[in-house]
């Protein structure tokens, strides 16, 4: 069995890559994909600790996170489509007004 800390390290690396993507990219959809990457890193942590402590609650939590990520992706991408119809771009620097 692989020790838990290896999974935690992999999860930390993936999370940091996601943070880096959110901070440095300007394309809205790429930022969104970086957020999905961070969500998956957290899922890996949850499951690693679920196995460590023999608790199924972590697995259930990941189940709910997946459902919420699906909802988030649907609404977020709809927002980007709406933004694209208004601005012809999804550069997040262009979207600095709440209402146009």
């Amino acid at each position, binding site marked *: 069995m692989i020790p838990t800390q290896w999974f935690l390290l992999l999860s930390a690396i993936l999370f940091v890559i996601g943070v880096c993507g959110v901070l440095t990219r300007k394309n809205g959809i790429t930022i969104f*994909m970086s957020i*999905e990457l961070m969500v*998956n890193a957290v899922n890996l942590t949850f499951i690693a600790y679920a196995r460590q402590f*023999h608790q199924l609650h972590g697995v259930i939590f990941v189940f*709910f996170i997946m459902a919420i990520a699906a909802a988030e992706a649907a*609404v977020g991408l709809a927002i980007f489509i709406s933004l694209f119809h208004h601005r012809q771009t999804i550069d997040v620097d262009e979207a600095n007004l709440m209402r146009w």
Partner: protein
Amino acid sequence: MIEYVIFFFFAAIAVLFAIVVILHRNPVVSALSLVASFFALAVMYVLLDVPFLAALQVIVYAGAIMVLFLFVIMLLNLQRQGEEPTRPVQQFLGYAGSAAFGIALVYYISKYAVLALPNTPFTADARAIGITLFEGYIFPFEIVSILLLAAIVGALFLSSRGVPLPTHDEQRREEHPSVAEGLAQQQSGNTGVVRP
């Protein structure tokens, strides 16, 4: 021993494709790299003795969510549109800040999170997960179903071109019947366009 080989191979794949996601200019390549990274993570879930979540990861994440991303990228034709380069200050601060954060995380994990594994095997098959889910988490489960419904309605509302309120044309049609004929001719000219 073979477990370690599998772990490091797929960990390397996950990290490499994650780096491609944030560095590549073309969003389609980013999305497909993210799919590859998610597949590698599904292998991690199998290594963690949770094959049910591995299947869920492949079906829901790689199958459904990423296809939604690809649809939107191709619908908006974003792969043609070049992305403006990020300001150097933002680039530097982003890389430096996330590197510092990463070093701190790795340091604390390797210092404090070194735990001894229990000897008994961890069983998390679909049966055990289902029993836990429907015994202790039935209320959150129902709440999530309502949340998904709200997300569907919200996505439909946001992605329609205008707010579906009574339009100006309909008001004019009610007030002046002669305008209605002109509007009908106008709309019959636009074949194939359903939206007002």
